[in-house]
Structure formats: structure tokens, C-alpha cells
């Protein structure tokens, strides 16, 4: 399928669909997303919702924003995301753009288990990270 978002047009297949076990707050009705990338928007990716209201987000690797980024998963998170052992996970910050200023939300990161194509927006009870971590763009 060809997916058109305001961040560009991308190719994707049904196998690329990520089911969100904890949807993004405020977008609870949207449970299926595609994580779309292209050389044009790298290092960003586009997290595009397939269910109404089909929200599209810019996202960025949390460790590209803060190389030391680390977020603990609770046992319940691990169960929901069906994480077994030390599987590699993708951690993303949702990006808010205001002209040439951009910030990433590391307070409530997106975690994706690529082995199961399951994702979640985590809201840890405590966190040292900011909801609007500035990207070095200025």
C-alpha cells in the first residue's frame, strides 16, 4: 500500500502494522500504526495511525535525542508487549514542531517490540525526562 501523510508519501505492507497495546493518550481509538521512514525525513520517522482519526506524528529515536536515554519497563508493560528476555526494542520520542523549533516528548516515550509488532506509549509514574526535550536544531 501507498500511504500519504503530511510528512510525505511512503510504501508499506500489512506486515508493517504495529498494534498499540496502550494507545497514545488522547488518541485511544487509534490502535494500529505504521512507522514510516524515508531518506527525506531521516533522522525522523513518521508514526502514522491507521484508525480514525488517523493521527500522524513525527517521531525520533529517543537515544538520538539523549544518548543516555533509558526507561524501565514494568512487568505489566513487558507482558502487554510480549517481551521475552532481552529482545531489542525501539524507543521513540513524539516530536512537536513549531516552525524551526522542535521538541521530543521523552517523558511519555513510544516503545515498540519489533519481534511482535506491538507498541505502547508509556507514562512512567516518575521520570527524569522532559515532555518537551529540545532537539538541537537552532
Amino acid at each position, binding site marked *: 500500500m501507498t500511504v500519504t501523510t*503530511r*510528512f510525505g508519501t511512503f510504501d508499506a505492507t500489512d506486515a508493517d502494522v504495529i498494534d498499540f497495546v*496502550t494507545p*497514545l*493518550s*488522547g*488518541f485511544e481509538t487509534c490502535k494500529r500504526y505504521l512507522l514510516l521512514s524515508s531518506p*527525506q*525525513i*531521516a*533522522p*525522523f520517522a513518521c508514526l502514522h495511525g491507521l484508525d480514525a482519526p488517523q*493521527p*500522524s*506524528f*513525527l517521531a525520533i529515536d529517543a537515544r538520538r535525542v539523549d544518548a543516555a536515554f533509558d526507561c524501565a519497563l*514494568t*512487568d*505489566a508493560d513487558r*507482558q502487554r508487549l510480549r517481551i521475552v528476555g532481552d529482545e531489542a526494542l525501539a524507543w521513540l520520542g*513524539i*516530536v*512537536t*514542531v*513549531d*516552525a*524551526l523549533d*522542535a521538541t521530543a*516528548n521523552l*517523558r*511519555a516515550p513510544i516503545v515498540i517490540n519489533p519481534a511482535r509488532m506491538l507498541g505502547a*506509549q508509556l*507514562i512512567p*509514574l516518575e521520570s527524569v525526562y522532559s*515532555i*518537551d526535550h529540545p*532537539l*538541537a*536544531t*537552532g
Partner: protein
Amino acid sequence: MLVFTRKRGQAIVIGDGIEVHIVRVGRDGVRIGITAPTSVPVHRREIYDQIRAANASAAASDATSLEQLVAHLRAKT
């Protein structure tokens, strides 16, 4: 809204498995302990509201400056 008067050490039970305990009562704040099944997310309201607002503004972010933004970001690294 249900309104209860509770004293320190007392609790409220909600449904099956959720308990709200009054741990300490101070002049400007109340310390509350919550036990809930791990499947029930518990958040501070203001954090939850901030994250909803951040998601909403991210979903409405303008894409017109994306090309410049990408160029800036690449130049930095």
C-alpha cells in the same frame, strides 16, 4: 462525584482490587497510597493532561518546515 470523609489510616475500595489509602494529611496536601492491579494505569492528573496536550499538538504539528528542520538536525551531527 462521590465525596467521602476519611481519616489518616482509612481507605476506600473501588471495584475489585483497587484501594485508596489516606497515608498522611498535611496542611496543604494529602499523601495517598494506591494499590491497583498492574493492568490499571495510575497517573497524576496534571502529567496525564500534559501528555494528552503534547500528543494533540504533535498531531497538529506543521509539516511545512520539515525539510529545513531535517537539514538543521543533520548539520548538527
